[in-house]
């Protein structure tokens, strides 16, 4: 099977810091790939490089076997890659519906959409509400309330719902449960499994080992800007994974990248 998303030799430098150091990366169709690693290992940089948020200094990215060069997140989105960044990327003063449809607004039918370029708020609001309740993530009364009035957990939920609603090929989640409570984390994990059941592959970055071992099909261990190895959660224990990612243990030869 060919990877749906493939990175080769990715390099990204920030001044003196090398965030990505000739890093390889593979996501298989339909799988949940977890990416784990220490703080500052370069996990966020990796997903930014494949999702167009930063342009890598070197290396190639292939989507479904075709090489792509995203220079902005918009291009990646158009290609079907949807990302929830660690910083969430929401406009606090705008409404939930506005945020969900940011950059892919729906215009009215007929002349008002065509010539006045008027937005179809009703449709967008209805769709946003549907997505949110379909995902069962929360009970939001007012789809027009500003995102800044939501709690951290609700905000994270909206971001994940946006990605799940629009991602057609790949969904990337960068630490989606970091600030969440037990209950809220649980909901996000359920959502991830739900998206997977629809056949869409997911990249999940997390520091929470139990979560990773619960949902991941494969685990990409990232260390010092590189893919150290890829392991199967059924073959290794959490201790092994932590040992690999912290450098306490050598990675298994066969699966080393």
């Amino acid at each position, binding site marked *: 099977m060919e990877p749906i998303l493939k990175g080769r030799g990715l390099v990204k430098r920030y001044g003196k810091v090398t965030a990505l150091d000739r890093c390889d990366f593979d996501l298989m169709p339909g799988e949940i790939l977890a990416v784990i690693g220490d703080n500052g290992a370069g996990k966020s940089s990796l997903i930014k490089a494949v999702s167009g948020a930063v342009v890598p200094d070197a290396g190639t990215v292939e989507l479904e076997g075709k090489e792509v060069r995203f220079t902005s*997140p918009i291009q990646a989105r158009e290609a079907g890659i949807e990302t929830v960044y660690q910083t969430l*990327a929401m*406009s606090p003063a*705008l409404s939930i519906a506005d945020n969900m449809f*940011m950059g892919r607004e729906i215009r009215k039918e007929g002349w008002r959409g065509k010539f006045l370029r008027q937005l179809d708020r009703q449709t967008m609001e209805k769709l946003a509400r549907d997505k949110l309740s379909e995902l069962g993530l929360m009970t*939001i*009364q007012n789809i027009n309330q500003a995102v800044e009035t939501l709690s951290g957990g609700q905000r994270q939920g909206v971001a994940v719902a946006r990605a799940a609603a629009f991602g057609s090929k790949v969904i990337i989640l960068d630490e989606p449960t970091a600030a969440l409570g037990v*209950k809220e984390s649980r909901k996000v994990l359920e959502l991830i499994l739900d998206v997977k059941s629809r056949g869409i592959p997911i990249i999940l970055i997390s520091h929470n080992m139990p979560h990773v071992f619960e949902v991941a099909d494969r685990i990409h261990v990232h260390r010092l800007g590189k893919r150290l190895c890829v392991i199967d959660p059924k073959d290794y224990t959490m201790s092994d994974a932590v040992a690999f990612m912290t450098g306490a243990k050598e990675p298994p030869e066969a699966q080393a990248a």
Partner: protein
Amino acid sequence: MSTSDDYEKTVSTAASDVAAFDDPHKGFVGRFHHALHTTPALVPLIVLLASILVFGLALGSKFFSPFALTLILQQVQIVGIVAAAQSLVILTAGIDLSVGAIAVISSVVMGQFTFRYGLPVEVAVACGLMFGTAIGALNGWLVAAMKLPPFIVTLGMWQIVLAANFLYSRNETIRAQEIAEQAPVLQLLGAKFQIGGAVFTVGVIMMIAIVLILAFILKHTAWGRHVYAVGDDAEAAELSGVNVRMTLISVYAVAGFICAIAGWALIGRIGSVSPTSGQLLNIESITAVVIGGISLFGGRGSILGTFFGALIVGVFTLGLRLMGADAQWTYLLIGVLIIAAVAVDQWIRKVAA
């Protein structure tokens, strides 16, 4: 961590009463607070109506006549148009100090292209509008692509454009009489019509039209939403799929275009083409925007608020003048008004929160 169990499973039986919201519509006060919160233009509107009422009571029919009230509209038309442009820029968390200079050089281009080069006046007006747009776009490019702070870019551009204006125009005024004879289209926005005692000009209609159109665009088009998103948090906007660079460049370009229209209206209002007019437009437009409740940090406020803000300043200026206040006292009171308006705004927002 030796005590390990399936504690996370427990949550499936958890009560789900957390994300429910209070109904905010509780009685009149509640609804009023809610309205203040969701309609940022309401506060300046209330201030505007209150100040009209106070001056009306104090001055009687002198102030409360169709003539005087429409006079205010005429007096604020230039500032109103420029402030609309300024609002756009400030909504993106920028600031444009070059608005006045762009307006003036555009009017000079319109006049000189007609009289110096003998171009058809419609072409000259189009050139003026394009010129203003181009300067705006250059501002936008420096801000968006070169990532320079808007304050500096437009501060520099202000000086450059103003000096270029004096050099190009040779400080010569094109006289109103000549324009009226040879190129009346230049004065189009000054054309007057009466409805009862009320006197309107095309420029006033233009100002109102620009404000309404921008209000529509900002609220009902994708571009408008993107303007707010960029002002709110440019990085988040970029990551969530907004083309921040093109949004910024287009905002500054549109602002330049609107300023050029203000330059055209300026010819209508003063009759002639004068390279020395419009010197205070940048400060006056920022004042109107701020009194109108748009945050200088971007992303919050409405263009209608700016319109009311400009009118508030106009009402105060005319009202104080009619009351015979000395010019310096008027400036002093406008200064107090600026601070007071923002303080009231802050206070209302706090109470309403």
